[in-house]
């Protein structure tokens, strides 16, 4: 608890009794995806940033300076471990060795949150380094349910599952065996007790690419299970006359994403919010300033709480 920045001290003071230092993540806290280039700056002056998220696969060093740097960050800030390699939607079953590595990361860093994606990224022993979409069928729901159960059991704690950015939809399988994503997530949350990492940028990206209404998505999503919100920017590319939104995390969040973020907060109340930036990474000051703007929106939502949506708004 040494050298805690002012914001983190407030965060620590607000934690419920009995919660270990820095393990709790208050609903009013803004974090950023941690880039190696920003580590020194974060330690020197976190500004409005009170917690950080790290990809699980970048936290698996056996030792050495990169591990020590992350351990130092963890001493000052709550941490979220965000997996991009477990392939919860993989038809071939979870990679047990990777799940064991994830378990060691969670044991070592005691993160406030652990999350993965509603997607698959490996097949036939090949890791594709992309979060590929699932058809929302009975088969997929059973499979992902099994894998989330298996993961939560291995980690001894619930995880959050993130809605993916999608670029394609599947032909319906047998008639009636098809769901919208919010309905699929609702069933998954109910069956496994997992939480939802709601990525509002991914909703805007998918809505643009597949032609649905982001607000209708919120109507159907299990908003009472939201444990974290992701905010990011995306690119728009024209392919054969069709505008495709590409989730590149390469620019500040655009107005459409911020508007959906505010609407989400209106419905959920304040939730821990993470700013993601993975390409064209700006200097720390610029990223911290953008995080500060999210912080303003989050604090405003916290000061004007709205009732949670009633269960009737969900199917």
């Amino acid at each position, binding site marked *: 608890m040494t050298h805690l920045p002012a914001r983190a001290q407030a965060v620590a003071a607000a934690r419920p009794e009995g919660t270990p230092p820095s393990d709790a993540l208050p609903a009013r806290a803004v974090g950023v995806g941690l880039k190696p280039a920003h580590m020194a700056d974060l330690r020197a002056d976190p500004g409005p940033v009170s917690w950080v998220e790290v990809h699980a696969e970048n936290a698996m060093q056996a030792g050495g300076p990169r591990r020590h740097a992350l351990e130092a960050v963890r001493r000052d800030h709550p941490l979220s471990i965000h997996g991009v390699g477990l392939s919860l939607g993989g038809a071939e079953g979870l990679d047990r060795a990777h799940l064991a590595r994830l378990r060691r990361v969670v044991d070592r860093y005691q993160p406030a949150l652990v999350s993965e994606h509603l997607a698959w990224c490996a097949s036939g022993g090949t890791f594709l380094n992309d979060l590929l979409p699932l058809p929302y069928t009975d088969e997929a729901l059973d499979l992902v349910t099994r894998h989330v159960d298996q993961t939560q059991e291995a980690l001894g704690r619930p995880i959050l599952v993130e809605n993916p950015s999608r670029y394609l939809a599947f032909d319906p399988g*047998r008639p009636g065996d098809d769901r919208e994503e919010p309905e699929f997530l609702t069933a998954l949350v109910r069956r496994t007790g997992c939480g939802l990492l709601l990525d509002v940028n991914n909703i805007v990206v998918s809505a643009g690419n597949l032609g649905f209404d982001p607000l209708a998505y919120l109507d159907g999503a299990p908003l009472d299970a939201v444990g974290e919100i992701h905010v990011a920017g995306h690119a728009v590319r024209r392919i054969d006359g069709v505008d495709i939104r590409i989730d590149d995390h390469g620019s500040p969040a655009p107005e459409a994403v911020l508007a959906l973020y505010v609407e989400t907060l209106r419905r959920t109340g304040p939730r821990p919010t993470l700013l993601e930036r993975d390409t064209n990474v700006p200097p720390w000051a610029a990223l911290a300033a953008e995080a500060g703007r999210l912080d303003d929106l989050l604090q405003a939502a916290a000061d004007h709480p709205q009732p949670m949506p009633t269960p009737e708004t969900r199917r």
Partner: protein
Amino acid sequence: MSAPGAAPSLAVRQAAIRDVVLGSDDPAVAAAAGIAGHGLTPAQRLAIHRNTTHITLIEALGENLPVVKTLVGEAFFAQAARAFLRGHPPTSPILAYWGEGFADFLATYAPAASLPYLPDVARLEQARLSALDAADATPLPPDALARVPAPLLPLCRCAVHPAFRFVVSAWPVDRIWAMHQPDWPADDTVSLDDGGATVLIGRPHETLLMVRADHGTLSLLLALGMGQTLETAIQAATRTDVAFDLTRALTRVLSLGLLTEVLPPGDHDGEAPRPPASRSEDRP
């Protein structure tokens, strides 16, 4: 396979998508994924994912092997990486070490034939990466061996630091690497006629160290790493290099922090050599 008219199973869809992402242009493969086009063809939709996989993996390989990338230039590197990816896609979700096998690939990659040292530069960068994240261990102090009673010394075993790596090259691979670092003196040059190098890599504290050594020193370390006694390790070193200088070699090895334990004979004496310690719990 699913019956005609029925929906493809998840396994069938994912195998088809994987093959397209990895490079298959067969329309029948794309069709097996059962994708709705929404104004584009299924292949065009899948091409978005193919691009993501290729671009991000080529980028990851470049981040792992920055000197190789600088030596050949961005465009050439991307081309070579794309060709490598076709035959050797990653098998682990941890990309920090991805590229094992790229050195061997480069050795057979005809467009790179004019840069015969390139595979060894890749080996060196790969060795440094894996040394960087290896498990921690505290190096022995420089006088650790001098404190062991002389008659016992030959029967001692030594633990080698988990971060120890080496590269043996017919080229001055360490200097080729060094000339692409920010602290390289502006007036220094590397000649390929300088000859080969046996390079030892260690991580005594937070920073990697890299030094040249003779083959005897390398043999000594490899034998110790296999759990042999110092006496056996010295014999191995002398067989490799008749001029092997033990005192000089041990000073070198200790100053690099490559030894972490000296185990006097006793409990271990007469037993089979210990298997080498697992190098890194989290490596795939």
